[in-house]
């Protein structure tokens, strides 16, 4: 039993459960309506679904997973097209597929993982140390651009940005070349002006401006940043205690269930609670990265690296946003924020990491 708990996959799963549990507790103490119509109840249902996913995925073989890469990617792209045609529009973005009257799902969340899959698949066929970085860049760009453009059509700035960051990280890390890096940097700089002028909506520009100087817009979007900082700061060392989130309860905080869930947590549990939560994610990311050296198979390497960055950037950007280090974009804290899509996708990613750290030795020996 003890050996089982000390096994790498168990550590990963336990950390994942702690994150989900903390998020659930946090949600319960943002008091809502009665339990059964509340966010907490819906989240509970999603948690049950996530546990089922854990069980299913950890029973799969890595070979099966690798074979599913391309169908998985195609499936998620089809979902993105579907949502553009039949999706439900919520606050101006057509990014939700309604499941019954009760639940809805965001395909843009799923595509972040399936992109990692498809890149891992192709890069492993090309060989991790292939000199043909141009081929790698082109393939990476094509696989990235298709979902990116579809997501921008919704439009969902947060998911698009997250996909961009994860893609860039994975592509650059596995097809590293100085010249290419410079070209990419110049391209991004050159594209940022037309993107600012034409692609971004006014409210999105406003957010970026208000990030730079929130005091210029205290009642508008800068208000959220200020309120979030007040919530977090007022938690001090030990927090106000669970259920005492005045900022959250009094509705000063917008999106307190999703994008600003961390602020409510930090208000209730203080600096200690924030460090605890961030440590859980840090463990997940760094612990996974430590396995990179031990894994021989290229597919698993890219996959593990991509999944770690998937967790890492959600953490980094979401928390930075709540403490005024990053503009407010709609990015949830994976598995912690309220929402089925991010919970399920987080659970998928987590199970995959667990699966890899459990079975990589067999693959090293036998290959995929």
């Amino acid at each position, binding site marked *: 039993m003890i050996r089982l708990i000390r096994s790498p996959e168990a550590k990963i799963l336990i950390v994942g459960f702690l994150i989900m549990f903390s998020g659930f507790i946090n949600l319960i103490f943002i008091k809502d309506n009665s339990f059964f119509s509340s966010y907490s109840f819906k989240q509970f249902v999603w948690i049950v679904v996530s546990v089922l996913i854990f069980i299913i995925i950890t029973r799969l073989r890595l070979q099966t997973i690798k074979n599913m890469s391309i169908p998985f990617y195609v499936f998620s792209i089809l979902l993105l097209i579907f949502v553009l045609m039949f999706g439900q529009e919520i606050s101006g973005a057509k990014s939700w597929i309604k499941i019954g009257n009760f639940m809805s799902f965001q395909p843009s969340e799923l595509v972040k993982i399936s992109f990692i899959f498809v890149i891992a698949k192709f890069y492993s066929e090309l060989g*991790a140390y292939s000199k043909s970085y141009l081929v790698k860049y082109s393939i990476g760009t094509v696989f990235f651009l298709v979902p990116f453009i579809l997501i921008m059509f919704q439009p969902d700035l947060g998911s698009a940005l997250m996909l961009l960051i994860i893609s860039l990280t994975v592509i650059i*890390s*596995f097809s*590293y070349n100085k010249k290419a890096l410079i070209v990419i940097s110049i391209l991004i700089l050159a594209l940022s002006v037309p993107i600012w002028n034409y692609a971004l909506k006014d409210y999105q520009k406003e957010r970026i401006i208000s990030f730079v*100087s929130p*005091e*210029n*817009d*205290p*009642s508008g979007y800068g*208000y959220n940043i*200020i309120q979030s*900082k*007040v*919530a*977090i*700061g*007022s*938690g*001090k*060392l030990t927090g106000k205690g669970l259920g005492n989130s*005045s*900022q959250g309860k*009094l509705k*000063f905080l917008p999106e307190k269930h999703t994008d600003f869930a961390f602020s409510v947590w*930090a*208000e209730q549990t*203080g*600096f200690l609670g*924030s*460090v605890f939560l*961030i440590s859980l994610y*840090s463990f997940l*990311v*760094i612990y996974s*990265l*430590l396995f*990179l*050296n031990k894994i021989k198979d290229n597919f698993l390497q890219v996959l593990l*690296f991509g999944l*770690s*960055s998937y967790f*890492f950037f959600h953490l*980094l950007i979401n*928390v*930075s946003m709540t*403490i*005024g*280090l990053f503009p407010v974009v709609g990015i949830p804290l994976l598995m912690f924020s309220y929402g089925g899509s991010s919970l399920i996708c987080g659970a998928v990613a987590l199970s995959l990491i667990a699966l890899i750290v459990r079975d990589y030795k067999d693959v090293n020996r036998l290959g995929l």
Partner: protein
Amino acid sequence: MAKSERSNLSILIVSVLLLVVLFRLFYIQIINGNEYRRISSNNFLKEVIVPSPRGSILDRFGKEIAVSEAVVNLYYKRNPKDDLNKLKKFLISDLQIERRIVDKAFKESKLYNNKNKRFILKENLGLKNIYRVENKLNSFMSLELVVDYLRVYPFASVGAHKIGYLKSNDKRDIVYGSFLSTRLGASGLEKIFNKRLQGSNGSRYLLIDSRGNEVLSRIVSFDRKKVQNKSGKDLTLTIDIEMEKLIYSSFGNFNGAAMVHEIKTGEILALLSKPSFDPNKFSKSISVKEWNKIKKEPHKPFLNRTLLSTNPPGSIIKIVTAVAALEEGVINESSQHYCRGYFELGGRKFRCWKQGGHGKVNVVSALITSCDVFFYKVGLSLGIKKYSKWLKSFGFSKRVSLPFSQNRGVIPSADFISKYLKGKWYKGDMVNVAIGQGYLTVNTVQASIMTSIIASNGAYPDLKIVSREEKDNRTLAISKKNLSLIQKGLLGVVNDRNGTGFHARSDGKLAGKTGTAQVISKSSTDYNVGEFKNHGWYTSYYPFEDPKIVITIFVENGVSGGRSGGPIIKNIVNYYKKNYLIRPGAIN
């Protein structure tokens, strides 16, 4: 990138970025934690109004009819350092603030919930007291001076109906309560042009806790969010406020309405109703008691008699009767009728106002002497259809093109007869309306329009009270010959030996028509001489050769328009000559 290099480098990057986040959290939660905790005790952000002055309303010569005056209000915000006894003494004996108000502010400010709340001690402190308070600001930390704007009407009740007054605004400032400068136009031009006059208040943002108390903070500040206040735009009227003042005082003890307008431009020089109210009273909040008192005034000071009260026109309508009869060919210049002092119709006697009768009269002398019998007969041969057509083309029963609420009055049109009289129209009714009694009511502005049409040889006046460009070029087709007959008659009314309007006679250039509207008592037992005296009309234009202005006076219970309205018109003519004709620079 080498395999191990990738792993180590990424762990390094991840760690550095996480440390930045953790350090930031440490800074917010530990270093600034106390400050944020304080702000978070139910904070919210509130807008504080920075008052802006309302635009002025000016008369045609730039005289201020309504103006916003900066006033300084005194607020009290509790400060434990102050010696309350000393402060109380200063407020009550030096500043003469009611003890009741001071006690209340002191008492309520002691409640925990009102810790930082401001209490108004006095609106419009006055120059001397501002000076006194300023000297004491250092010794009494709890006193605060705040600038606000008070609406002032220097001419008070003169022409107040069209200028209007202000009412309170529901929008209250969280810190200072209501500002005088945020009051809204409640009636008249203040209401119609409220948007233009009001300007926009500025604002600044304060962090306020749930009890409305300001939370001062060194880490969250909104100073840069200030919105500059903008004063409202001025409104220049065509009114000559000094002329209105003269008319108002010329009315003496009488009540009524008056209108003077320029014929060529249609610009209204004077439009006023008496009795009136003092709009200054509504620039501040008014007590219920005072409001009830004003409401119960028997003479209805809020009734705008220029447009809202309609009365039978009496003999001034004989102008229209004469024009209609001449134009329709019922009479001509030499047609004569004999007046015996009465006219018999179906066994009923319709009397002329002059008992002995006027003898032989033609249209001109009938106008001059206001002979009723002549117009009885003319009216009968004219018939109601043609008559009401002419009444309508003179503008009666129609809205006048002024932005104020108005009562259009009635004429016995075919519609009216079928709707209200079940189609029954008797000769006796016709006889009555021909001399301006019966089913015929008009307002003062409509009467002015009628006279203006005659004076300008048929052109409708393009009435305006705020200068504007458009021009109304419509004219009423009346033959020159007939017009000059009427004009001759009107000149005679004032200047002929037998003219009924001789009370206004001065330099022989005034032309006009008097009238008397019979006031019918509903109950003969309730008979009251004062209240049921007849109303007097006098409408006129000046000067006869080259008409420039129309003057119409309506005197409530004035008995005779000539006697009660005549002297007022005489005053206006003298004023006009002095200020517009002799002093050429003053002509607009």
